[in-house]
């Protein structure tokens, strides 16, 4: 049996009023890939912050042994010196600096007179990139690369620091399937070279694929550590451990499921890239949604899903937009966000923190942000009615917050997403476009979101669901459109759809635009 590289014993971390971790134990063996699972707010990130010295020794109880010695990290620099490198979900790269500059940022290769030796740095950067399977020029600005490649550069940066224990927080959350697979295989490759990894992830398939052992954390406590080679270690067992209950169905059943007349239709929808006017991002797309219908849009990263949605919603993405939008058969104007909202459209963004919420503002003002007109007479907002509205959604959507006056930034991801949905429901839309509504939120909250989607459909709304997760689309939609390189390549009834069939359509390339799909989707 391999020895333990890391032992965390009885870690307890208290914040004013909250016990974030209580007696957590974690053992990581030398040379393994160790997954950590848990719902949002379970304490995974806090545990990693304790380990990496973000919370210095003395601010928590318990002991950490790393490489057989007791570790007392006062800063992140201490833990990095010991060989522990953490890669956060939000990448810490400077977009305007080159690959080599980013890799050696804070760890510069000095030559004579203490000046930076760029030849040496670029040379080493190339070697490091080769180790992570990247073939880029070391002087390319990082911002020009896609998210998947940026993630690999983060790993290269970690390797440059002689990492012994690599911690990855949701490394594949923003990656498409190909990039995810590459990353996971890279982790396996690093394992062969003796690098131990801890991976925090929500994606159970990935954990099953890559992890040797998995520790499940719930409510700040260790539930169990399971050996993934044991046939009893199924995804259902992990889910059970995470949520503390049996989740018989990951997708709620549809009740009251009646599909009515067509509500929403787009035709000949073409969008060009905002800064490269020749580049077609959405190519002559057409689709329709009926009342009470949930229609999925499946596509890989860069297929143009978000671009399609945002260009429809007030032309918030792209230029050179042409095509028609119809509501109940009549053409409508969606050229600004307020016109789109007035015409019954709502768009819940894929990046709720950056595009969806005012994090420094409270729950009630976020809920009222898009439908403020309904609370207004003569330009004055009725603050008391606003509270009534917020309380209504807090109850109806089961938003877990001590008060509607709580700042949204203090809520967990799932509850933040419920605030976003409440905001749009309050505008009483006929068409609800949901862009990755369950990204980065835990299994329990996902189930709640699916239930809400069903409820909205049952109320006769037309729902468009954009998602990277095929099981999610198959579990919640009635029909699924596939989008590849800006073109709609097919539509399938969910009864006939299989992941394999969808994936075939999603990867259906047109030779002339083969390179278009490699870029990120960021607007």
């Amino acid at each position: 049996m391999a020895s333990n590289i890391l032992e965390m014993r009885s870690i307890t971390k208290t914040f004013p009023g909250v016990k974030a971790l209580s007696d957590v134990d974690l053992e990581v063996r030398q040379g393994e890939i160790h997954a950590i699972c848990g719902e949002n707010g379970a304490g995974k990130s806090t545990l990693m912050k304790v380990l990496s010295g973000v919370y210095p020794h003395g601010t928590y109880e318990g002991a950490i042994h790393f490489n057989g010695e007791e570790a007392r990290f006062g800063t992140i620099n201490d833990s990095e010196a010991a060989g522990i490198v953490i890669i956060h979900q939000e990448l810490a790269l400077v977009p305007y600096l080159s690959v080599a500059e980013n890799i050696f940022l804070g760890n510069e290769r000095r030559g004579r007179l203490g000046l930076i030796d760029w030849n040496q740095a670029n040379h080493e950067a190339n070697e490091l990139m080769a180790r992570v399977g990247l073939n880029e020029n070391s002087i390319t600005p990082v911002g020009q690369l896609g998210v998947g490649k940026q993630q690999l550069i983060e790993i290269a940066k970690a390797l440059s620091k002689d990492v012994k224990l690599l911690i990855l927080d949701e490394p594949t959350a923003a990656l498409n399937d190909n990039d995810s697979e590459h990353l996971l295989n890279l982790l396996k490759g690093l394992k062969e070279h003796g690098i131990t990894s801890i991976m925090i992830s929500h994606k159970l398939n990935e954990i099953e694929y890559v992890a040797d052992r998995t520790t499940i954390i719930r409510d700040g406590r260790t539930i169990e550590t399971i050996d993934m080679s044991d046939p009893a270690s199924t995804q259902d067992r992990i889910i059970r451990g995470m949520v503390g209950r049996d989740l018989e169905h990951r997708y709620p059943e549809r009740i009251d499921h009646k599909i009515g007349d067509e509500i929403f239709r787009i035709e000949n929808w073409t969008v060009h890239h905002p800064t490269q006017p020749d580049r077609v991002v959405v190519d002559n797309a057409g689709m329709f949604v009926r009342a009470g219908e949930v229609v999925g849009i499946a596509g890989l990263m860069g297929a143009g899903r978000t671009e399609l949605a945002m260009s429809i919603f007030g032309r918030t993405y792209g230029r050179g937009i042409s095509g028609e939008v119809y509501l109940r058969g009549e053409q409508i104007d969606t050229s600004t966000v307020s016109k789109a909202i007035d015409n019954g459209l709502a768009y819940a963004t894929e990046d709720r923190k950056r595009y969806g919420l005012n994090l420094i503002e409270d729950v009630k003002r976020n809920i009222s942000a898009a439908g403020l007109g309904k609370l207004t007479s003569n330009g004055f907002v009725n603050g008391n009615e606003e509270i009534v509205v917020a309380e209504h959604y807090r109850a109806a959507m089961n938003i877990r917050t001590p008060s509607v006056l709580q700042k949204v930034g203090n809520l967990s991801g799932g509850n933040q997403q419920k605030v976003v949905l409440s905001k749009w429901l309050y505008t009483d839309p006929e068409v609800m476009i949901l862009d990755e509504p369950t990204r980065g939120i835990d299994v329990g909250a996902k189930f709640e979101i699916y239930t809400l989607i069903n409820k909205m459909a049952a109320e006769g709304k037309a729902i468009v669901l954009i998602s990277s997760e095929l099981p999610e689309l198959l579990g919640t939609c009635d029909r699924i459109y596939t989008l590849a390189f800006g073109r709609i390549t097919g539509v399938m009834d969910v009864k006939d759809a299989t992941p394999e069939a969808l994936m075939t359509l999603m990867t259906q390339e047109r030779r002339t635009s083969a390179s278009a799909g490699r870029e990120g989707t960021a607007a």
Partner: protein
Amino acid sequence: MTGIANVKELFTRNLRQSGIVIAFVAIVLLFTILTDGKLLRPENLNNIILQYSYILVLAIGMVIVIIGGHIDLSVGSVAALAGAVSGVLVIKDQHPWWIGVLAGIVVGLIAGAWQGFWVAFVGIPAFIVTLAGLLLFRGVTWAVLKNTSLSNFPEQYQSLANGHINGLLGGNGYDVFTLLIFGLGVAGYVFSQFRARRKSIQYKQVVAALPLFIIKLVAVAAVVMWFGWQLANFKGLPIVLIILGVLVLVYSIVTARTVFGRHVYAIGGNLTAATLSGVKVKWVNFGIMLNMGFLAGVAGILFSARLNSATPQAGNLFELDAISAAFIGGAAVTGGVGKVSGAIVGGLIMATMSNGMQLLGYPQQTQYIVKGLVLLLAVAFDVYNKRRAGAR
């Protein structure tokens, strides 16, 4: 879930706001002791109001600019230009005094619209637009005044900044009208507070316990009435205080209760989220800058009336006082946070310190150094608080 908040809760819930009031009280006490009570003498209180009113007017506009995530460096130059145009019309061309007032406000609006156009519709950061405006409007001021000062405004014009309403209802050594206005103000305040509290309870919100609530009202009323008594004992009610009072009232309502106010907070808090929620960001930004121009025009008129002259150097460094007032009053450097009442208290802190140091005969250099450090510490306190709150 009607809840009653105790002292500690109320205090910690709004640490920044309560902190600023405590700091203000401490500064007043400090200078009262240092000046042997001169600070709080009727003539000095009257003087503080007349001397610093224009800073408070600017602070109201500036806090809105800062909440929206911008900054305005040009307010001093715009104020100078408003005073200059007014001076040329009234002193040189012998137009009636109110033409000067209107012209000053129009100048402010035009300057505001100009800067609003570049900020909102061209998309140039306000820092750059208003830095350019600082030079541009100063240059125009010099051109308008042909590099000389104009003096001696008509009496009505001067009284906007220096005049008092006195003896309207008689009184023996104290002005009854002043006391009446203050009394009405306090009554209105108490009434609106009670109404808000009743509504809050009706809507099941957390409110302060009744004794605590009453103590707070009595304290505020006592301080305000004492202040009124001091003024009534001196020259009566300063006209500029009426102007200031109306502006504070109107802008408090604008920021807290109107859609425009809401949208300012929304774009300052998260610009993209506001855009995607249907906020007409360009027009809101235009409105913010236009409004700042308007208030800079008002401040320019008050300042020229106070000086009784229009000079090319008027309004130098006004922007720094106004920006300091907003930040000391709790506005966030990153936008999205701030209050008109906070900016007023921040402005009063700056005014009290300046006045106190002048009474003590401190030289200008000391005053600059002290004010600079106070601004730095106020924002450092804010940053520290945020870090502590966000440490989880």
